[in-house]
């Protein structure tokens, strides 16, 4: 299926290649690099490129291109999903996914890739299984390794892959048994000029961090499962039980994982936590413009809105800006995309933060047609905006009493204000 993988940095340098079948010359990447040249932004490179003998499927993630070479028909999502798993695996192992990290751990990444696919077909993509085969580096271990000459490759042969619960390794032991669940909800919204909601929806995810000994069998139930409209689960969740009783029953993987993602069934009743008053105008004659943005809390359910950030995508013809913020600071980026990032921080209802000032355009440039759009980022602790609540968590199969915790966070997802 997947013939080869190339990792390419934004400047077009191929810094890692791996072949699972016969070697494909890296000149095949020229087609991709050509497409990359044509595209304005790296995101605009088409994910599927058709060349005379091969098909190139690529993803752009963390400022890196993962380019796979395919020779025969295969569902493109299959490849894309796998490439993202590779990126997640690197992230998981080394803390971040970047060119330097990959270059530093070249051999280990190569070994991991070797284990992940056999003849181009995924063999082990569960991080639990991989970590048993090739242990992730830690500072302690690297010190021990240099001193004792031991290695990161598991010398005990794995069992996880063989078990029918591949996501959990056997013989897990913890002194503190804990299970934490984060209910994270993201508001996707588009607001128009006047502040009315064009489109809004809530997407949620339950992230879990489970550190329990043995083979615990957990059951998580919600107070109001009816809210959940569409769900997708980690493979460990028993779907039948969800269908019949609306509870999540599962034997958890060890460590961090995404238990479920959901979509909230409330098409028009989404509470928008902030409002934005903005006026951005360009003068018809001169090469000047004005910008005035105010952010204020709206439906926050009594919680404080934190981490508020406003990104303004300005027209390309902007030459410079001169703004003052009553709260927080702003940065101005004049790269391929002209943006202003205004980091406000905590929202104070008494004193609303405001950003205003003048914009100057390049001389002779016409007045921009469209006003720039604003992207809002925010965070509300201890609140799931949909009102979803976890009822209880029960554990079966083990005798000890685990420490349990649930945390709620609301964030802005793709939250855009049109102007």
């Amino acid at each position, binding site marked *: 299926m997947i013939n080869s993988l190339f990792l390419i940095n934004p400047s077009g340098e191929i810094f890692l290649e791996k072949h699972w079948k016969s070697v494909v010359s890296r000149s095949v990447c020229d087609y991709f690099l050509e497409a990359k040249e044509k595209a304005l932004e790296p995101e605009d490179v088409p994910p599927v490129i058709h060349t005379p003998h091969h098909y190139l499927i690529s*993803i752009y993630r963390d400022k890196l291109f993962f380019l796979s070479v395919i020779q025969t028909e295969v569902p493109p*999502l*299959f490849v894309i999903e796998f490439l993202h798993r590779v990126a997640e695996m690197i992230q998981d192992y080394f803390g971040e996914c970047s060119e330097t990290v990959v270059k530093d751990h070249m051999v280990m990444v190569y070994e991991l890739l070797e284990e992940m696919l056999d003849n181009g077909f995924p063999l082990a993509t569960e991080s639990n299984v991989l970590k048993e085969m090739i242990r992730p580096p830690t500072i302690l271990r690297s010190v021990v390794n240099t001193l004792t000459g031991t290695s990161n490759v598991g010398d005990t042969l794995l069992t996880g892959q063989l078990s029918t619960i591949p996501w959990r390794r056997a013989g897990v032991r913890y002194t503190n048994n804990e299970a934490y669940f984060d209910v994270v909800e993201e508001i996707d919204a588009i607001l128009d000029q006047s502040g009315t909601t064009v489109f809004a929806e809530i997407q949620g995810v339950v992230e879990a961090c489970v550190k329990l000994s043995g083979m615990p069998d957990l059951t998580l139930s919600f107070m109001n499962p009816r809210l959940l409209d569409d769900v997708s689960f980690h493979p460990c969740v028993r779907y039948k039980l969800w269908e019949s009783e609306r509870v999540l029953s599962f034997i958890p993987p060890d460590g961090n994982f*995404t238990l479920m993602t959901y979509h909230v069934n409330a098409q028009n009743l989404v509470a928008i936590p902030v409002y934005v008053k903005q006026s951005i105008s360009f003068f018809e004659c001169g090469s000047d413009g004005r910008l005035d943005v105010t952010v204020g809390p709206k439906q926050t359910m009594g919680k404080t809105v934190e981490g508020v950030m406003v990104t303004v995508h300005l027209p390309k013809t902007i030459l410079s800006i001169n703004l003052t913020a009553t709260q927080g600071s702003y940065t101005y980026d004049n790269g391929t995309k002209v943006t202003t990032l205004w980091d406000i921080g905590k929202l104070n209802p008494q004193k609303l933060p405001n950003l205003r000032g003048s914009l100057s355009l390049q001389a002779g440039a016409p007045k921009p*047609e469209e006003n720039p759009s604003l*992207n809002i980022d925010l965070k509300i602790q201890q609140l799931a905006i949909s009102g979803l609540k976890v009822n209880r968590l029960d554990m079966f*199969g083990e005798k000890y009493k685990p420490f349990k915790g649930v945390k709620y966070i609301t964030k802005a997802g793709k939250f855009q204000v049109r102007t």
Partner: protein
Amino acid sequence: MLSMSTNNLSYSDQGGTDSAVEVGQETTPTSSNAGAGFGLFSVDFKKNEDLKEMLESNKESLKLEAMKRVVGLIAKGKNASELFPAVVKNVASKNIELKKLVYVYLVRYAEEQQDLALLSISTFQRALKDPNQLIRASALRVLSSIRVPIIVPIMMLAIKEAASDMSPYVRKTSAHAIQKLYSLDQDQKELLIEVIEKLLKDKSTLVAGSVVMAFEEVCPDRIDLIHKNYRKLCNLLVDVEEWGQVVIISMLTRYARTQFTSPWKEDGVFDEHNERAFYESDEEKTRDETEAKPYMMDPDHRLLLRNTKPLLQSRNTAVVMSVAQLYWHLAPKNEVSIVTKSLVRLLRSHREVQYIVLQNIATMSIQRKGMFEPYMKSFYVRSTDATHIKSLKLEILTSLANEANISTILREFQTYVKSQDKQFAAGTIQAIGRCATNISEVTDTCLNGLVLLLSNRDETVVAESVVVIRKLLQIQPTQHSDIIKHMAKLFDNITVPMARASILWLMGEYCERVPKIAPDVLRKMAKSFTSEEDIVKLQTVNLAAKLYLTNSKQTKLLTQYILNLGKYDQNYDIRDRTRFIRQLIVPNDKNGALSKYAHRILLAPKPAPVLESAYKDRDRYQLGTLSHTINTKASGYLELSDWPAVAPDQSVRNVEVIEPTVKSKPAKSSDDKFYSDSGEEEEKGSGSSSSEDGSSSSSSEGNSSQTSEESDKSSSQSEKSSSESDSEKKERKTKTPLQKKTVKPTAKDWYHTIMEHIFNEESWTYVTKQQHTKTIFVNVINQHSVLQTFSYSHWSTLCVSLFTQLCPLSLAFPLQLSGPAFVPEKSHDLLHRMTGKGLSAQYQFPRQPCLYQPTMVSVQISLTNTTDHPLEQIHIGDRSPTGLNIHCFNTIECLEPEASVTVFMGIDFNDSTQAANFQLCTKEDHFSVSIQPAIGELLLPITMTELDFRKEQGKLLGMNESSATITMAAENMTSQPISRPVATVANLGMVPSSQDNVHRFAGKTANSGAVVLVTVELRGESTALITINTEKSVMGSMLLRDLKLALAQA
């Protein structure tokens, strides 16, 4: 600069395998200029020398360090092939990390260094026999990844072996190896298909995905292989790993399209076919004819839909997409919409996922607007979306537009038109055009909106608007003369050449509708002609010509003026056009013939452009495929066939095992504990089926008949597989010489090595054959869920100890029952299918203590229905002698045609070889059958010490002793231990012996529990003394006779 130089370097490295290139590289200024970061590699040549030394050193750590650097080179795409000899030496290293790195290296370079690669083969062959399944698997994985054609026969053997391995993980690896071998040598296809066929029968979820993948690659057209496995695959699907799910689902989609009839009721053609199907079908269906049922979904079709539905909730986007396409292609129209929600959910995922999903939605939404309309807002464009995402969303919004929502969509479009991304704005204008043509109510609104856009400052927007307006007007020119007029008014302000040209064309085309304005426009153009762009000039000439033809009175002079200007234009296109037009329209004597037609040439009615989606006929490709994405047939794309008019025979999917068991999750965890056990355990675990017999029937006594049924099934399976492996072995034997031949012509100095391997392989096969059959045995049972909680070895001991407890024995010395030393697989005919009117029965002695009653001998009976109708109520009827004590098996309610079932019964033979006669009855018939046991089967093995044996023997002298001296067959003397033939004849246990030439065996009779002691003393060259001590002297002499025969046999 830096990156450039590395690129250059690596390019040449790729090509050249000889080190000379690299030396050359080193001298070039680019690489020597390379910064410190690349210093390491700019002196590749010397470094490699260094690496070689490290690899040849004795220190593990140095070797490891060297290998890491070598793999680092490979990862960067540099050439490290010259190190091959040094690396390959380490292939047998004990250090696992080192070994893995060597494997990585081997797989990468074996293709280039074929001769040297062969040096490593023997290591893998050895590892293939390792008791640890993971080592076996990884050996097979590497062996099959070495793309060296010469080892094809070795690979083939290894694959066949692994396909019947007891570990599902090894079997999975063998499924992967099939694809690799196939891509290496297509001639192996037929043999590989056999292996695939075998692996398809596998019940492990681990294997399913991989073998289907192999199937798709090697023989996707052999749909017949799927029939028997169809239901199993459907049922296993949820438990298969996610990548396997994708492959299986897409294969099942193709399968279903060939096997079931269309569920799409709207399909008018379908009804006809259906009607015909009824007429053609045989008498049992004729009744249905009158009822005229339009469509009945095949239960198997429904099964597939039902079992794939939960996978829509998968976190893997590829799985969700594949289920969505399955529903799209297979489900009744009213059920397809359940996939909508899940597809919309995928839009939250990564950009690339969005791209693919949106493409598929675009195709779907053209045919089925209703599916996505409620989710219209999810397709609203954000300014941060990538360009291709934006245009796809636009595409979908356009397809979703209808009378009800058009105003919302148009309002949304208005925002898009103002986008900074001008390409996207232009796309939006086209989309508006499409909406306008599709929904006639809004055509005017759209046109007006577009006209407003003509005053836009951006030329792409204006140009696009003009072009779209032109298209719209072309479609319905009659009503819109005022728009043309408006455009004429705007003409002076519009500067974009394309837009100006479009307006001029419109003027010319519809000059008769605007008779007053057109000449005026021409007048203006004549003034500015010289300063216009070429494209505008061309259209001006066209306009002039058209006006000349329709309104020559007013425009004759203007036309001539323009034609004169054009004649001397700098652009030859314009000069050419002018010349052509002049000749065409201005009549003169020479070309009068053509100018007659000038009107018809220039003002011919032109077909209106069709505004339609680029995704209109994408659905000719299966959704979710690469071909669908690139809109051309990708290599290896498998066409989705049309529904058959008449459903093929449904019964092909019937299997003996009616209800494939799905394992419950917690129980599985114990399985792997078992799997991780090494092969040795299976050695003693012989005769598994009978031990199971005991247990399951004991539980059936405790009124759960289902378990016994299930276990019966499983044992019948195991029986089959064992016979299978028998035949396979024969096959292999015959093939080996052939393989030698193929090796021969290419013989070189390593020829011997290869020969050796093959011989090794063969002898190994021979020896391990026995072990193998058992392995499969155990394996099948194990999978069959009944025994999940116990590993096999537990079973054996459990049975025996249970039995010992039940035994009302009070003997002077500890009479410990033991498991049988050997179970002969010979089965005897109980009822031939001819005499049994299609019911055939065979029996064999599994040599396990019978749990029904300790005095009974357990007998395993396999019943097969060879008729074409199910046999009902198979049970045991009258028996004789009347006192005969038989424990019957439970009545078998129904035995399907071609199905077979294995049952167990216990018979008390009363320590005599007198045949047990009874009747085997079905609902209609009864057949007299008899079982005559060999004397050896009436015994049960016991263990005792040598001392006890001597003591016991001392009690049984004189009358109770019978002995004979025999001449042994030569082979019995030398090669095989004497225990094998003895154990074959009689169910006796070995007694450890202090003397080499004396072998002792002990057992007891089943009924009376009398001790039977056998001593075989080897004397000299070929003679042996057999002594039997037992109080049942008749039995003693009979046993002696049998033993004499067996040991003397050649």
